[in-house]
């Protein structure tokens, strides 16, 4: 049952698809407490119009907002061995995986896609914090390798949006091994002379920060994003050091020379277009929203080898 059944006549009711009707029309900004209407929030890409607080954005919504006309095609990621360590904590790892898949509707914590931004062909990889904290295991490693290989094959830049609590502990040492594996992926891009741009979103921590998320040619972060190796709680607990205001937030890292830019979400797409086009020595592009590329244009841009 949906709330709408109580308010509209059954005949009209039947034309609404249940999926399109959100249960919660209003949500509250975690930062300033403003009540925000869901349509308004969606239009602002989950940024609070009152205080500018950046809330989480699902990986698919990020891709839709990024690509011209919201049009992209997914790049296939080779599936790793499931539950390689037969890991069990309070729950079995396969059960945790199933629960995460049900809750998110996604297969794993990263999506890889190809398409155009400002008519600039790119490959994008987006980490999904809502899937087990975006944690990096074999799948995320495979996704980044697949993204880099696809970018090299198509001769396109790779734009990566990071968001993760760190390594996927249920994959133990194999999650740690994704640090060198993803670093090899970054090296493939660098050797091919292709731009690798990292957009760090809230939060990016642990082994993710200490590998592919810190190796971009250009490092951009969303405002307020927590970016660190050891998180503030760990530092306070183990070293008992008092931490300054804003410690490990994007702006703090910018001040300490660890980032190139901190850019609000609404400006991110244009900025990515500007930067990648300059790095690729392409003329400036008309900015703003563009319709999806036409079929032919897509094929023309895709003159590189077929994906395997």
């Amino acid at each position, binding site marked *: 049952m949906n709330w709408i059944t109580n308010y509209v006549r059954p005949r009209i009711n039947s034309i609404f698809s249940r999926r399109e009707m959100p249960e919660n029309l209003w949500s509250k900004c975690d930062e300033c407490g403003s009540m925000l209407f869901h349509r308004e929030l969606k239009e602002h890409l989950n940024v609070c119009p009152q205080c500018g607080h950046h809330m989480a954005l699902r990986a698919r919504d990020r891709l839709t907002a990024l690509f011209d006309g919201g049009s992209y095609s997914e790049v296939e990621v080779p599936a790793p061995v499931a539950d390689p*360590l037969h890991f069990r904590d309070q729950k079995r790892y396969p059960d945790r995986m199933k629960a995460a898949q049900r809750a998110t509707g996604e297969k794993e914590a990263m999506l890889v896609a190809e398409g155009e931004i400002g008519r600039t062909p790119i490959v994008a990889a987006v980490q999904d914090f809502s899937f087990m904290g975006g944690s990096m295991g*074999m799948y995320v490693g495979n996704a980044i390798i697949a993204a880099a290989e696809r970018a090299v094959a198509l001769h396109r830049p790779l734009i990566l949006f990071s968001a993760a609590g760190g390594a996927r502990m249920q994959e133990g040492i194999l999650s*740690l091994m994704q640090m060198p594996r993803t670093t090899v992926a970054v090296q493939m891009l660098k050797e091919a002379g292709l731009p690798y741009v990292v957009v760090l979103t809230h939060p990016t921590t642990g082994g993710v*920060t200490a590998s592919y998320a*810190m190796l971009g040619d250009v490092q951009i972060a969303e405002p307020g994003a927590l970016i660190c190796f*050891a998180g503030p709680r760990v530092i306070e607990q183990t070293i008992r050091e008092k931490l300054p205001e804003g410690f490990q937030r994007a702006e703090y890292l910018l001040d300490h020379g660890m980032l190139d830019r901190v850019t609000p979400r609404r400006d991110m797409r244009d900025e990515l277009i500007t930067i990648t086009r300059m790095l690729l020595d392409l003329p400036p592009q008309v900015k703003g929203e563009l319709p999806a590329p036409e079929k032919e244009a897509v094929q023309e841009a895709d003159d590189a080898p077929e994906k395997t």
Partner: protein
Amino acid sequence: MTNYLDFEKPLAEIEGKAEELRALARQNEEMDIDDEVSALDRKAANLLSDLYKSLTPWRKCQVARHPDRPHCKDYIEALFTEFTPLAGDRNFADDHAVMGGLARFNDRPVMVIGQEKGHDTKSRIERNFGMARPEGYRKAIRLMEMADKFNLPVITLVDTPGAYPGKGAEERGQSEAIARSTEKCLQIGVPLVSVIIGEGGSGGAVAFASANKVAMLEHSVYSVITPEGCASILWKDPEKMREAAEAMRLTAQDLFKLGVIDRIVGEPLGGAHRGRDTSVAAVGDAIAEMLSEMDDMDRGTVVQARRKKFMEIGAKGLST
């Protein structure tokens, strides 16, 4: 006197008694207790062998962290000649948790780098318990670059609880420093071999151990997080470290099965600290063999082989 681990308490009892009898015998010459002493010694030897026959993963962590275990400095002093420490990251400081420099290994000039934990309170503090700060990784990067330029093989000795969770380390970009050090490991055109001699703790270890060949001492451990850390996150209780150590598969034996490491170096009965010379010599042999496996490789092949190794890790899980 030996430092005993908690599970070695029964052993401490027996070895203590034997020691006491010997001391008494030294004071009273007419006392003949040889039989009693050798009986106790036999009992101690049997117990030691029983205890170490199948150490649980958590006990291995304890052995790997044993205060008397040979550390980086011990291996460097015993296995290398003309060791010439090189200091500093040319940017901020010299990190004493990381030792590194030029040396000769079997007369061949090499670069040796490792984490040193220290052996007493003073040196442990000075070494920051083997936890590098960004300067340590940046020193390692500098030394690897130098080795690459002069075509010297690089040998790393890994023994760290992990990266340092401190304010300054974060402010000076330890994530970036670890990422760049891992990147450098994967870039250099000279052979890189690594031995995990104690604790291989998370990113701090990877930054040194992204090597062509990785060996582990029999009772050393290598993991994404400490068992205590894993327990507090997944079990919400740091006291569940035994369960966490079990689940994480952090022993040399499991990592060999998973294809993460290339060889296991045996330790004397009771752990490396009960036979330091034997342990050091065994590590030396392992380094020599691992280096010789790359004798005929040119620079490009060395880099490609290293990358391929990491790309293939994890393709198969544990089969058991």
